[in-house]
């Protein structure tokens, strides 16, 4: 079955190699092609160190591919742009700014007047559930709250695509579970195209419209799954468990 919607982001034969200190080429990403469609929640799922972050950096425009290209709405991607917001694994909040300062950083960079950007920022702070913490510094927040602020900051520069690099990877299991539910709620309230990287199968199945499976180094796409379960999903729903079993077997045939 083909996913619906217009293509917003395209990767064609994307590859990236690094030169090791000993001088040999180390291929992290090998020939990856896929499309991202408008307003879909796409999860890139793969094992441990399989080049997912490298892939995301290429999509963000923070790094240049050794082969192939990235295209956004028909335009080639060379540099970072506010149209592609990123939420990182560990917090990348500016520690010297308050939550408000961080969230309004994007609009402020574009020269939007103070009153207006404050209003925008406040809307997203409320949306992610940080009302009352506007004046807190990042080091006064818990890990989950820091990621909420990170999500609000990414949303606030009004991106067409949100790139999320294992945003909940460093949280404890309980908080992680809660944040997954929260992200889905936020996403349903403010629909954006999301490209979410994770190595946690439950997280992938809970959030995704579509899952792309990546193999280990060099990373290539090995399979694609459509997830058509009704939202919000249930971790113990038989269909959920069935799909989970299928993907787990795909990644590791011995199981």
């Amino acid at each position, binding site marked *: 079955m083909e996913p619906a919607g217009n293509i917003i982001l395209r990767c064609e034969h994307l590859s990236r190699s690094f030169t090791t200190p000993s001088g040999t080429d180390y291929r992290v990403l090998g020939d990856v092609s896929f499309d991202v469609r408008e307003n879909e929640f796409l999860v890139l799922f793969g094992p441990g160190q399989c080049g997912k972050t490298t892939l995301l950096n290429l999509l963000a425009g923070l790094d240049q591919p050794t082969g192939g290209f990235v295209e956004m709405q028909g335009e080639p991607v060379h540099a970072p742009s506010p149209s592609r917001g990123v939420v*990182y694994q560990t917090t*990348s909040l500016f520690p010297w700014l308050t939550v408000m300062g961080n969230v309004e950083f*994007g609009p402020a960079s574009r020269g939007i007047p103070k009153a207006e950007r404050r209003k925008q920022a406040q809307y997203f702070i409320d949306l992610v559930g940080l009302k009352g913490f506007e004046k807190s510094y990042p080091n006064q927040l818990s890990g989950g709250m820091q990621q909420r602020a990170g999500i609000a900051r990414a949303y606030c520069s009004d991106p067409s695509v949100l790139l999320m690099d294992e945003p909940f990877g460093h949280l404890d299991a309980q908080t992680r579970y809660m944040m997954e539910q929260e992200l889905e709620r936020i996403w349903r309230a403010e629909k954006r195209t999301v490209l979410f990287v994770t190595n946690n199968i439950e997280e992938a199945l809970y959030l995704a419209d579509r899952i792309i499976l990546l193999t280990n180094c060099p990373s290539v796409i090995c399979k694609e799954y459509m997830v058509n379960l009704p939202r919000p999903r249930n971790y113990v729903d038989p269909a959920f468990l069935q799909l989970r079993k299928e993907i787990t077997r795909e990644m590791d045939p011995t199981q």
Partner: protein
Amino acid sequence: MQRIGKTVWKRLKANRQTLLWIVISFATLLIAWQVASMLSQGRVQIPAPLEVFEAFFRSMTVPIGKNTILEHAGISLWRVLLGFVVASVIGMAIGILMGVSPKAHAVINPLFEFVRPIPPIAWIPLSILWFGLGSSNKIFIIFLASFTYVTINSYEGARNVDPKLIGAARMLGASRRRVFTHVIFPSSVPYIFAGLQIALSVSWAAEVAAEIIYSQNGVGWIITMGMNNGNITQIMVGMIAIGVIGYLLSTLMRVVEGRLCRWNRQET
């Protein structure tokens, strides 16, 4: 106000043991000093503690040389302030420039490395030849003493900015200039402050040394005059003044840092 009073009282109660020991150790010092002064004779003279404190408070109204001790302190502090401020501004600019541009680092660093091993005090004779015997030679020494620390720390700060933060700022649409003013600079501030703190205490030490070696006024002059006249009480008065000012300067820096780097503190 009442609340502050209460917390201070609570802390004192909790640290009763510390307080007791502070009293014990100061008492021991004073007694040892008193005994030493009674036993001292001949070349090694030690004035009694009371005599020294008396002289210290007297010197606030009765001048030593041409000025009271407060005026001497003011003269010394003014020199430190001038040298320190100029060195801080130039040091920060050069340090950050070296941190963001490898080319600038390649040009400036070797010159810096040539000059760095020479203690600032060793510049005093040359500085006197260049700037004469007045205030400006001391300001130059203070400049040299603080410049090194501010530059190195600003350089380290600008070089160690988390690349993820720069990436995040670019992603959010920040221009190169905004990345510099809103990311590189603020994230260097804790480093710069560490440098400023050392620089200020080193400046104070350099100022005192420069005044001891050659000057016509200032707190260092007080102790040199004491040495020349064999007046140990006056030397000790000068040393107390130097210690008090040194303490006030470092406390001031800590307070300012606490204000500016609030975000950098680990909340527990």
